[in-house]
């Protein structure tokens, strides 16, 4: 039961951290909660579908369909987070000034919300489908321990959601002056971490070269399966044994998004 709780906790935690940060980062955007729930539901339904079609997905592209699928999902999420940060760079000051009031332009608020929905949906889709498969395996196996293990799964899920919510609540305590700078930084690191994961999947599929694998090994200091390692992985994309290509993806996404934010933050009248 305990083992089950930990496995489910790890899967749920990653999605919960993403949702916690993105929800905090879109504070003050009109209609946010509705879109958030829509994203969550779409992600849950989607993860059921993905779990059920694991075999079909896996057989695409000569057996590396799963890696491609994950890399594409991550790639889309990176694009959306980048868009979010650039949008925030030009609207964040305004949102901070008015604090919890409406976005200046409703249609802009809506496009920001649909990005939120997509990011939440994709996070749930990716982590959820593995959880569904795992729990399905338990439920399908013979023996009386299945119920206890499913109960463990429920505990793991609740613990993951609790951590995600704590991150959200903690972020809301940041004073308004620094709030959007802080969430912007977190989203930036989240996106870079996802880009590194996408590279990892493409390397595993042998579609791009690894370039030095691993580039370093910090698994004895911070093992990836320890609680600290898991948290760091979810928050900033920590990898104890990254390939060189993962680091290149990480740095490139950091640089591109930062540059976009800098451009967007400039006063409009320049040109």
């Amino acid at each position, binding site marked *: 039961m305990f083992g089950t709780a930990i496995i489910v906790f790890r899967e749920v935690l990653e999605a919960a951290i993403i949702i916690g940060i993105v929800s905090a980062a879109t504070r003050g955007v009109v209609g946010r909660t509705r879109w958030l729930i829509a994203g969550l539901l779409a992600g849950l339904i989607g993860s059921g579908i993905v779990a059920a079609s694991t075999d079909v997905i896996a057989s695409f592209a000569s057996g590396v369909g799963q*890696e491609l699928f994950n*890399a594409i999902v991550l790639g889309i999420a*990176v694009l959306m987070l980048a868009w979010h940060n650039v949008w925030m760079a030009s609207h964040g000051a305004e949102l901070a000034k008015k604090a919890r009031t409406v976005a200046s332009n409703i249609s802009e608020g809506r496009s920001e919300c649909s990005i939120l929905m997509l990011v939440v949906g994709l996070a749930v889709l990716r982590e959820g489908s593995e959880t569904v498969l*795992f729990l399905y*395996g338990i439920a399908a196996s013979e023996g009386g321990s299945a119920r206890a293990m499913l109960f463990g799964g429920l505990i793991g899920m609740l613990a993951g959601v609790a951590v995600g919510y704590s991150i959200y609540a903690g972020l809301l305590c940041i004073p308004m002056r620094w709030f959007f700078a802080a969430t912007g930084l977190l989203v930036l690191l989240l996106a870079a971490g996802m880009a590194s994961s996408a590279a990892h999947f493409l390397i595993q599929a*042998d579609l791009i070269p690894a370039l030095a*694998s691993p580039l370093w090994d910090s698994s004895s200091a911070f093992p990836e399966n320890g609680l600290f390692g898991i948290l760091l992985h979810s928050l900033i994309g920590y990898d104890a044994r990254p390939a060189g290509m993962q680091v290149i993806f990480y740095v490139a996404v950091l640089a591109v998004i930062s540059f976009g934010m800098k451009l967007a933050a400039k006063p409009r009248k320049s040109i």
Partner: protein
Amino acid sequence: MKNIFSLFLFAAALTPVASSAADADYNLVIKDHRFQPAELSVPAGKKIKMSIDNKDATPEEFESHSLNREKVIAGNGKAIIYVGPLEPGRYEFFGEFNKETAQGVIIAK
């Protein structure tokens, strides 16, 4: 840059993995939540193509911290995983969904 990246992804999805022919081929079978063989000897310094055949009805996740690999294999499904090139040494792997029994090791020489 992002567009180029996604174009690359789709192009990659449509073309078969070109380099696969030259790689070594190793087979693992999962049966009764155990890996067969539980010990796999591979040459060091070479990229390895592993094919994993899950003969159980339940899904399994091949995972290895030392190899930095993680992949779900559907019940009665197959999967391909690339690892390496590896330094000589022992690389443990396990099935995350059935950790008590599903254990194995790759030995690179």
